[in-house]
């Protein structure tokens, strides 16, 4: 990975983008709603490769007909002001990939605040749309810096609802609860573990299972055989480097180790 002059080489950020793209590859014709830089890159990569039917937006108020680079414009194919985002959340044809300041073993997510709710140690954004997203449409998470402070036994505040909490809240909550993937800079996870807990799905090239376990603050379910996250294809690398992110913004989130 040190020699970046050859097209065959790829970076960790490229691996993450391809893994995020894979999370959207089988979604069909739905609104892909990425929050933040790498999720946006991954979704656009999926639209250019595995899933051209994806509906994407400028993150603001319009659906884009084409697939522009990060920060770019394109032909407008629809109108999606915030009020209609809420409509689509309830309609269900949406897959959102959110950030997560904390994630626990049960796939609960926190973006609200760190510490006690009454007087947080650190106030974050607030719960935003996480409670509604997680009981209405497919939801994934992106964590650019995997650590035991992010992946911990219990989140301080449940913003995004994992499968167990959804089940406990009743059928109206669990019916559309669908926590699909969690992608970090080290690995890919799903909630296929016992009782819907987090399970290691693959480790990125160059990362060991032990490193992931070490960097995770709860007992992670590790299958007997853990595959390696696939390498991005030559076509994907070209699309990422030449078209979607020629300025290398992705390295701000996932530095080239």
């Amino acid at each position, binding site marked *: 990975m040190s020699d970046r002059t050859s097209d065959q080489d790829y970076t960790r950020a490229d691996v993450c983008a391809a893994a995020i793209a894979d999370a959207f590859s089988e979604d069909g014709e739905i609104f892909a709603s990425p929050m933040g830089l790498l999720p946006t890159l991954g979704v656009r990569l999926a639209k250019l490769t595995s899933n051209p039917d994806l509906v994407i937006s400028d993150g603001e108020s319009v659906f884009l007909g084409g697939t522009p680079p990060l920060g770019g414009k394109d032909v407008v194919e629809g109108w999606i002001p915030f009020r209609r985002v809420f409509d689509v959340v309830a309609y269900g044809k949406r897959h959102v990939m959110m950030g997560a300041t904390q994630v626990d073993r049960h796939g609960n997510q926190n973006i609200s605040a760190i510490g006690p709710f009454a007087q*947080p*140690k650190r106030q974050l*954004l607030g719960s935003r749309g996480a*409670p509604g997203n997680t009981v209405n449409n497919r939801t994934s998470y992106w964590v650019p810096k995997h650590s035991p402070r992010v992946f911990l036994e219990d989140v301080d505040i449940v913003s995004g609802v994992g499968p167990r909490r959804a089940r406990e809240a009743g059928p*109206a909550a669990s019916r559309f609860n669908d926590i699909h993937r969690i992608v970090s800079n080290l690995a890919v996870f799903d909630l296929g573990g016992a009782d819907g807990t987090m399970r290691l799905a693959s480790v990125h090239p160059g990362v060991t299972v032990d490193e992931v376990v070490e960097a995770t603050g709860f007992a992670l379910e590790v299958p007997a055989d853990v595959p390696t996250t696939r390498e991005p294809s030559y076509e994907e690398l070209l699309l990422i480097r030449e078209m979607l992110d020629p300025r290398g913004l992705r390295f701000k989130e996932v530095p080239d180790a």
Partner: protein
Amino acid sequence: MSSNRKPRDKRMSIDDVVGSLESGMTIGIGGWGPRRKPMALVRAIYNSDLTDLTIVSWGGADVGLLARAGKIRRLVYAFVSLDSVPLEPNFQRARQSASIPEIVELDEGMFQTGLRAAAERLPFLPMRAGLGSDVLVNNPWITTVTSPYDEGHGHEELVAVPALRLDAALVHLNRADQHGNASYLGPDPYFDDLFAMAADKTYVSVEQVVDTAGLTVDTPVQRLLLSRMMVSGVVETPNGAHFSTCTPDYERDERFQRAYAAAAAGPDEDWQAFHDRFLSGDEASYQAAVQAFTEENAK
């Protein structure tokens, strides 16, 4: 004979609006985060004697300013963010020092449903959002309702999102006529019509007051978001959403926002200096100070 039988002229000043508000009121603030916020009206509340307010907002610097001034007794929000500065420093400071006595954090879709319930004069509306999350744990007064219908999934137990009834709503649009018909010219209406219908009184500040015919002369009729029947007062406040967006009149003033955020996050002296320079006077002096700041930084 009928020439004087026209709808009322509702133009008023910023001070008239603030003078019509009372301490203890529930006030909804339109826009979204750092977008099309009625900042001129918010700045005037910041400098007023009003206290003990309940503020209902998808928050940006409106919440930050009013929190910093100690105006808020109860805050209803789903997020507070400046986007390019993700965490609002004045809001963080207020939360981390527990200076706002009552905190109501909702899911952002619940917030819309609560406004809609109020707009439709309903006590609540059902939805899924909130189920299983700590929104219901931290707001034990928000409860669930069991569907009387079984559509094949049992009698679903849904969140009964309470109506977010407002004493007053403050919104900022691009244009209005003197009667209160108002249009947005940017890409997103946000929820300003819902705020207006959820409120007993709605005050709309605008970039420009035009005559009624001027409202549709160069823009489609669908952009007329507010009807005068929803509006109690109209204030012309050019650049009145500054430093939030008011597309297409102007975009967010990122440089000024960074200065605001740095002052808010810094030691008390920094905030005092920011306050003294920009916020201590009326709207005209604020706009003059902003103009000077812009010229200084353009060099």
